[in-house]
């Protein structure tokens, strides 16, 4: 770790502390948790862009699939729905596999030309109707089961922490399929293709209610950490808070003491829960960081950089560029998927409407570019810096506008307009940060270290 990285993280710590003293520790920890998740996502994008120069603008899809994994792993199964439509759904799945197999067979067996195109089209269209014949009644039956509370298949009822790994697997699987289609394309076409695929994945999550209730959202997800209300009733927790605040409690009068202790316990329970999350997320981040760093320093990492810097030369040396691109695409997407599952775990709910390319794709890109592409620590720092500025831009803008317009009348239309506009200063600030870093420090806050 060099001086710049140390200074960067120290500045972040100071900023979080300032939020803690200025707003509240609860807010500060909430920001920290999202910073940690953002850092994991940035790490994933850095694996793709920083190591191998893949311009993937579909991060949102992998974050969404990670979120889906959280639902499918942790929610209790809905047996009635499975009984109502499970068999038909399986048959539809089988029909889909069969169709895909037949198309593959046709492509393999029939020589290139008009005949092949026609055969593929006929097989696909016939397959579509067979699949629909099973699929449509199946989802209708599933969605009819208690639509206000379930109306979907539910999950496996396992602990939600397992979903973080499952989220990685989901994202990796999707990335493999997407990579098969898109990785042969030119860099700019690849970018547009991934942007399009991410929109489709989110459209599926929004509309396939049988899968995860779509826009009806799944709320009240399982938690890997204790609930505040349990903590507040636990004797050991009250004792701990009491001993930590012994001074303040001793100073209070006998009558106030119980009330003060109760308030302290309520406040502390929220902070304790957030600290638990922070611990879990930090552990994941550290593990991934160590792994990525080892990979980058290995011969494999050197090969990746060689491919990034000169694809043709690497290919001439016998490196399989397509396979290596596929590898980093799958690995990086898996990391984003893990982060997506962590995010849904933290929120305790899965809301497909929340996925917007600005927040889940382009913002992550800003993190990587700002932090320093090609440098894992840089991507992590970028995640912290950008999330912190994204979240604190609004209160700061509001405060600035308030100070600037203090002289105006309270009902001045311009003042009202500006106060309302404060929330929208965020994208401007992000854009400016990105453009300024690209222009004046193109290698980011912590530049990539070139090892020879």
């Amino acid at each position: 770790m060099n001086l710049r990285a140390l200074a960067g993280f120290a500045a972040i710590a100071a900023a979080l502390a300032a939020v803690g003293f200025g707003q509240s520790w609860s807010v500060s920890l909430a920001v920290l948790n999202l910073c940690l998740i953002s850092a994991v996502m940035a790490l994933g994008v850095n694996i793709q862009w920083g190591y191998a120069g893949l311009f993937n603008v579909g991060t949102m899809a992998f974050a969404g699939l990670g979120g889906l994994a959280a639902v499918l792993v942790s929610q209790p199964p809905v047996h009635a729905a499975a009984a109502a439509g499970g068999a038909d759904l399986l048959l539809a799945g089988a029909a889909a596999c069969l169709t895909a197999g037949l198309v593959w067979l046709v492509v393999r067996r029939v020589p290139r030309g008009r005949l092949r195109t026609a055969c593929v089209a006929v097989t696909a269209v016939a397959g579509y109707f067979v699949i629909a014949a099973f699929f449509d009644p199946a989802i209708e039956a599933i969605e009819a089961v208690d639509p206000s509370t379930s109306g979907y298949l539910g999950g496996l009822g396992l602990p939600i922490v397992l979903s973080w790994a499952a989220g990685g697997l989901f994202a990796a699987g999707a990335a493999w399929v997407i990579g098969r289609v898109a990785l042969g394309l030119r860099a700019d076409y690849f970018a547009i293709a991934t942007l399009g695929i991410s929109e489709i994945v989110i459209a599926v999550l929004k509309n396939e209610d049988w899968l995860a209730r779509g826009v009806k959202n799944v709320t009240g997800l399982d938690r890997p950490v204790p609930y505040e209300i349990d903590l507040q009733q636990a004797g050991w927790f009250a004792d701990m808070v009491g001993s930590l605040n012994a001074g303040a409690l001793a100073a209070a009068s006998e009558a106030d003491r119980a009330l003060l202790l109760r308030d302290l316990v309520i406040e502390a329970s929220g902070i304790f829960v957030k600290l638990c999350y922070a611990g879990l997320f930090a552990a994941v981040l550290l593990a991934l960081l160590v792994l990525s760093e080892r990979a980058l320093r290995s011969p494999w990492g050197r090969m990746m950089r060689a491919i990034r810097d000169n694809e043709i030369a690497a290919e001439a040396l016998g490196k399989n560029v397509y396979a290596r691109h596929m590898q980093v695409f799958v690995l990086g997407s898996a990391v984003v998927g893990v982060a997506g599952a962590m995010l849904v775990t933290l929120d305790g709910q899965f809301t497909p409407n929340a996925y917007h390319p600005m927040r889940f794709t382009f913002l992550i890109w800003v993190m990587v570019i700002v932090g320093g592409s090609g440098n894992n620590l840089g991507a992590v720092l970028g995640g912290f810096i950008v999330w912190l500025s994204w979240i604190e831009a609004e209160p700061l803008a509001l405060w600035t506008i308030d100070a600037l317009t203090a002289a105006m009348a309270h009902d001045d239309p311009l003042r009202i307009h500006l106060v309302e506009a404060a929330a929208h200063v965020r994208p401007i600030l992000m854009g400016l940060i990105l453009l300024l870093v690209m222009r004046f420090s193109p290698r980011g806050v912590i530049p990539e270290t070139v090892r020879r």
Partner: protein
Amino acid sequence: MPVDLVNALVLLANFVVVPAIAYGSQLALGALGITLVYGILRFANFSHGDLMAFGTMATILATWQLQGWGIGLGVLPTAMLALPAGIVAAVLAALAADRTVFRFYRIRRSSPMVLSIASVGVMFVLNGLVRVIIGPDDRSFADGTRYLLNARQFKEATGLAEGLTVRTSQLLTLAVAVVAVAALFWFLRRTRAGKAMRAYSDNEDLALLSGVEPGRVVLTTWVIAASLAAVAGSLYGLDKSFQPFTYMQLLLPMFAAAIVGGIGQPHGAIAGGFLVAFSEIALTYPYRKFLRYLLPEDMQPDGLMQLLSTDYKLSVSFVILVVVLLWRPTGLFRGRVL
């Protein structure tokens, strides 16, 4: 012709053909801007959607001002009078972005990916500016006569069961698009500046050697692309409604249109725009009523006969994009760009 067949065709015209022509014209104008920037400046410009929103915003503000003064165009929407303001604003925004951002990377001959990432920064800034200035909500600014032909009039005139509606904004969109495209083609083929643009896009070094001034070519490109963006955005806003976020979502169909037609080729962008628009609308239209007219009593369909749920509208453009890229990577029209 039997009445049922006519009714079926009118139904299709009303719900598929007319809306798709209007939407296709809007996409084509937007895709032309993307294709021009790609052909001359050689990068995928992610900020084009928000440039459209920016121009439209200026048009709306000017429209409100004109409406406040009581100036209107009668039958036509006031926005037509305000359009020059939108064009000027979009051109100024594009030129400012070029001057402060893109020129730096162009001179250093950075990779197209770097320029694309820079355009993401420009996208953020423009998006934020639009939201700060006009707010994130739905804004409607259409006035004038809403319908050129409404369903009741049509039914009374023809005696058919199905009505045909043509909104003023739809016809206006087509008319403006035709004029803009004709002017663009005339410019590219006949004028000196247009020929310089084509030469520059075809072979930069040769063009420079022949005395084409790169600064001027770039300037012309931005002026044309931004003007088209402002026109396309304003027409889209008139036809549907204005919401800053929807313009960002238009980016994908516009890219699809540009790539499907062969990126860098103006006529390809137009064909691509209509292809995307027709596919999106035709695939998500429920054909139940249409088939009811055509099929005998005992073969009536039960379901909606919709090939794709409306929610997957956006996905259609992408599927077209992937199919074309796999099947014919250079786009539908091969050959020289511009």
